[in-house]
């Protein structure tokens, strides 16, 4: 029998407390979504008279479905764009020695230090000049590439051995194919991480989509849900039902990509 070390107990306790703190709002969200309007302020966790009426109503409401699809489109396209362009630029910065490379890298990094609040105004001015306000492109364009993603991918591509690239060059692959067929598969852990961060960030994004959209058909899910709060009175049970449905894709995507993360880490661990 091995004795349980005190450090173990402390860390388990802390993890347990942290877990409870994090899961409580989710439980309340689910519980509230199963209550009707009259029970919302009855704080019992298990609803006295659970009902699926909210779900039926929300899912039957064309607006909600529209917002859900909008969020999918925006988060999906932005994620694909980031995975593609961040890694393309990251790879170039990591593996090609060209004049001014360092300067470009610093310029990209320095944009990380500008807070979003400062960028929203220029973004909006730009969007309105180009006529992008109230369009998918208007919601998506600021996030199509990120400095953070570029930086992350550059760091990972630096770990790809030059031999791999040179061997491919000798075999006659062109530079784009080398990136796509050789380098990209070797950084799957980073790609999954980038994809998850980007998708989650855009799925839950609120501030910019709120500013750039005016018509309800273009709302993303968070913007749409918040509109429940300002119509008439605050309908908590509707908001919570919407939120419950909104968390579902993130949960699924995380569970799905987790496998890739594990496999990716194993790939990266393979040494010569």
């Amino acid at each position: 029998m091995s004795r349980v070390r005190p450090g173990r107990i402390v860390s388990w306790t802390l993890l347990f407390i942290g877990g409870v703190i994090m899961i409580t709002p989710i439980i309340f969200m689910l519980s509230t979504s199963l209550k009707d309007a009259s029970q919302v302020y009855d704080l019992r966790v298990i609803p006295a008279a659970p009902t699926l009426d909210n779900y039926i109503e929300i899912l039957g409401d064309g607006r909600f479905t529209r917002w859900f699809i909008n969020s999918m489109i925006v988060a999906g396209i932005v994620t694909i764009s980031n995975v593609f362009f961040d890694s393309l630029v990251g790879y170039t910065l990591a593996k090609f020695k060209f004049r001014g490379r360092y300067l470009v890298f610093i310029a990209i990094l320095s944009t990380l230090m500008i807070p979003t609040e400062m960028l929203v105004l220029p973004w909006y001015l730009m969007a309105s000049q180009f006529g992008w306000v109230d369009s998918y492109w208007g919601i998506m364009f600021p996030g199509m590439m990120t400095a953070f993603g570029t930086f992350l991918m550059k760091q990972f591509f630096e770990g790809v051995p030059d031999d791999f690239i040179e061997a491919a060059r000798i075999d006659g692959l062109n530079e784009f194919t080398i990136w796509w067929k050789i380098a990209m598969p070797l950084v799957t852990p980073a790609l999954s991480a980038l994809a998850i961060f980007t998708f989650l960030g855009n799925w839950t994004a609120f501030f910019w989509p709120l500013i750039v959209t005016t018509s309800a058909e273009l709302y993303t899910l968070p913007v749409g849900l918040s509109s429940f709060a300002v119509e008439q009175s605050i309908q908590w049970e509707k908001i919570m039902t919407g939120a419950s449905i909104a968390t579902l894709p993130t949960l699924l995507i995380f569970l799905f990509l987790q496998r890739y993360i594990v496999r990716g880490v194993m790939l990266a661990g393979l040494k010569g």
Partner: protein
Amino acid sequence: MATIELDRLVKRYGQTTVVHGIDLSIRDGEFVVLVGPSGCGKSTTLRMIAGLEEISGGEIRIDGRVVNDLQPKDRNIAMVFQNYAIYPHMSVAENIAFGLYRSKLSKAEKRQRVEQVAGTLGLTPYLERRPSALSGGQRQRVAIGRAMVRDPAAFLFDEPLSNLDAQLRTQMRIEIKRLHHRLGTTSVFVTHDQVEAMTMADRIVVMRDGRILQVGTPLELYEKPVDIFTARFIGSPTMNLIPASLRDGGADLSVGGSVRVPHATATTSDILVGARPQDLIPTSNGAQGLTVSGTVAVVETLGSETLVHIESGGQTIIGSAPGREIPRIGEHLTFHAPAERLYFFDKATEKALAAQ
């Protein structure tokens, strides 16, 4: 198959020159080994031949054609890297097939080539495996297979065996040698290991500080090293060098009496007399040649022979005794090397004295 010629080849990184205008002519089908200590410019030279590194000066010709400005893929060479450079996310078959990336063969023909090469290298049972499920030796074989499958004009190897353990290295050495014998493809092999160089090369190119010191067959380098560096680099254990001073017709050694020196033309009278441990054997007869006596300090038993370190006049000299004769530490021993097996070097220039 092809000839490779380097003509006053220079490589500079910014202000520093790492390859100082080397000339080398490699014959069709020859197995040439570039050997030298780490950092002497072997890899840089090989990479310039491959086209992975730009040439700062001079010319490279493959089969008589100047390739200075050709892309690696247009030089029809294949390269095997130290870290194998096989892709962990592809199977063995896919990795080998990469060598045929630009080939116009049909899918079926490619598959057939891959299987044929895998057969040659004993990889047939592993074709569908991932590299992670292979041993180091098997991975290196995959890398060689990838190079072979295309039937290139020349093979370039950059220290392909240094990640393998000693036993595998010996085995792969023989396999590569055998393959070369069968395929007859011009090969340039880079290593810092003189044993690899000696055992594999048709000709060895000894490099140091970005320059070629000597080119020759293994035996030529062993018997007629042009300078102290090559003399000590080739052969194991390294050659004994005993300070001596020149007088007409001979030299007085700091230990071991005096020897006759043919054709003495040195800058000063200070020379070094060299004797390989294998040539210094225990004897009682003091005929012509070098005779050293001293007390045994260290004995290295190898089985086939016994290396004996003796202390004499403040110097340690290594000789060899037959395998089953093991001298005791502290014992007094006399070693003798015949006159025709001695080497003579100018101490100031480190060059060999004029031909014996």
